[in-house]
């Protein structure tokens, strides 16, 4: 059991973090906005926590949970504010233009992080204090947070604000003509995503113990986007599942590679070529599962067949 926990504790927490990052991309997508800004806010949230805990609070380990929660709150607020500042002008752009603008935003933040003193430059920030003895204990924080975010998005889809998001996604002009202010709701969806990414970043900084400019890159944008698009972009369960599965994928492949009797070249490919497989899954997924793996129809069919039973 102990063995299992130490092997997989880190993975479980990572999977949950991945699920929440997927959700952070899903929120703007609910309003039809393809934003790749999440890694930027994630990185920023992480820096907020890393700087506060190593330079401001300076308490002995174990790092108090209350302070961790405070950092999450502060990270959320800062990312939310930046989300509004960036979102309001940027969300006048549509489709690919918005995606490019958010890529630029992530790159600008990355270059800043690489060069500022406060972020530790290229080396980043080390020795971020641990609130827990072992990685698995982070579940105390991330699991409730995931459940809260899922409940939040689930409810959101059923209320006035969520309906406004969805109306904009379906047809922005029609929504506008029905009295919905697209700029406001797009910026709101974008900001909610920014807040979630920032909060996740704050936890991750502690969880990973170190934080640097590699946390918020274009690669990360692609990976989170994959969570959502392959998981399914039409229901919040898609990104949650996508985030978990794709975060676990390297481990899964490694496990497969370890099965005895596999040809050596294949085992080696599964181990070292996992990102190739990742890329192939994206290409195949867009072709054969354009709506992602989890679709609203799938969920409906399931609930119906259960009701009939």
């Amino acid at each position, binding site marked *: 059991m102990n063995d299992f926990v130490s092997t997989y504790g880190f993975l479980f927490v990572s999977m949950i973090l991945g699920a929440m990052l997927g959700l952070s991309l899903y929120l703007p997508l609910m309003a039809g906005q393809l934003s790749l800004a999440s890694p930027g806010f994630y990185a920023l949230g992480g820096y907020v926590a890393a700087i506060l805990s190593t330079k401001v609070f300076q308490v002995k380990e174990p790092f108090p949970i209350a302070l961790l929660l405070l950092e999450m709150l502060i990270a959320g607020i800062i990312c939310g504010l930046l989300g509004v500042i960036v979102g309001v002008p940027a969300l006048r752009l549509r489709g690919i*233009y918005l995606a490019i603008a958010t890529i630029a935003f992530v790159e600008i933040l990355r270059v800043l992080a690489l*060069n500022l003193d406060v972020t530790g430059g290229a080396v980043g920030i080390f020795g971020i204090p641990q609130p827990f003895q072992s990685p698995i204990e982070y579940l105390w924080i991330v699991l409730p947070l995931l459940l809260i975010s899922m409940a939040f998005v689930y409810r959101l889809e059923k209320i006035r604000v969520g309906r406004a998001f969805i109306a904009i996604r379906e047809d922005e002009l029609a929504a506008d003509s029905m009295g919905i202010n697209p700029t406001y709701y797009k910026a709101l969806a974008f900001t909610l995503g920014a807040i979630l990414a920032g909060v996740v970043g704050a936890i991750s900084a502690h969880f990973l113990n170190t934080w640097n400019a590699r946390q918020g890159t274009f690669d990360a944008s692609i990976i989170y*986007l994959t969570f959502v698009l392959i998981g399914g972009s039409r229901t919040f369960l898609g990104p949650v599942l996508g985030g978990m599965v794709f975060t676990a994928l390297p481990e899964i492949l490694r496990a497969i590679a370890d099965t005895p009797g596999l040809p050596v070249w294949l085992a080696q490919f599964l181990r070292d070529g996992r990102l190739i497989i990742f890329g192939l899954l994206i290409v195949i997924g867009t072709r054969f599962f354009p709506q992602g793996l989890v679709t609203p129809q799938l969920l409906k069919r399931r609930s119906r067949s259960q009701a009939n039973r």
Partner: protein
Amino acid sequence: MNLTVFLQNVLNGLSIGSIYAIFALGYTLVFSILGIINFAHGAVFTLGAYFTYMLMGNAFGFNGLLANLALPIRLPFVLALFFGSIAAGLVSVLIERLAFCPLRRKKADSLLTVVSSLGVAVVIVNLIQYLVGAEIYTFPPDTYGTLPPAINFGTEANPIPIRSVQVVIFVVSGVIVSLLTYLINATKYGKAMRAVAEDPTTASLLGIDPDRFIVLTFFVSGFLGGLAGTLVGSSVSIAGPYFGIGFGLKGLAVIVLGGLGSIPGAVVGGLTIGLVEAFVPGDYSAYKDAVAFGILFIMLLVRPQGLLGRSLVQKV
């Protein structure tokens, strides 16, 4: 800033700017006919550099499946550049067939195609890493033959030395831009390409097989991408499999600045960003990469159609 430094900056800027332009033209050609950004273009750029490196008979390093492998042929730089870029063009066509074409046939959402092209980029980058490792490859010093390291463009008393590499880049980009101008203005496909860039509905009216047309466009685009990759790779180094990704992002800045889908825009945008970067003061050179993205971000906000693009009105 004295005149020599100023001129050097200008020439540096134009030199890197012309590579940006060539690279961005590859993006633009595809965007202008399909309305899609091909994110795999940066990966094709990387591949071009590796292809040329290989065709010149250089050996790979110690990592990866192809460790220590070298081709039994040794082409001179110009030929290797040419065939390396052709190979990049063929890869680009392959990408079109495997990742773009099926989605187009299904009339899928263009964002899906974008994601698919991202997937291809991930595959290529990591395949390179799997095959030849992640190390930096430097072209041997005699790559350009017996050119001196620098050529003096001033007088003896007032030297304005320019690195020969930059001269090579100038010559190559000059040739390429002229060829492309010819291709676009004088051939049937070129005219179609321009017509489609101006108005996407006209393609079918010109009696051109759209499938062949698209394949050709991808070929030219890949050729330009691979060529740009070699020019950067041979003048600096091939900084590993990810080397084209950052460059690819900068290419986005170039085409947005010039105007998405605008062919002259790609050239103007490339030269502009090259020049602006060259004039970033040495103390702030670490922020150089942010400059292009800053320009990009601001451009999108004030004039999303770019310097030379058509305005974006949508039909209600």
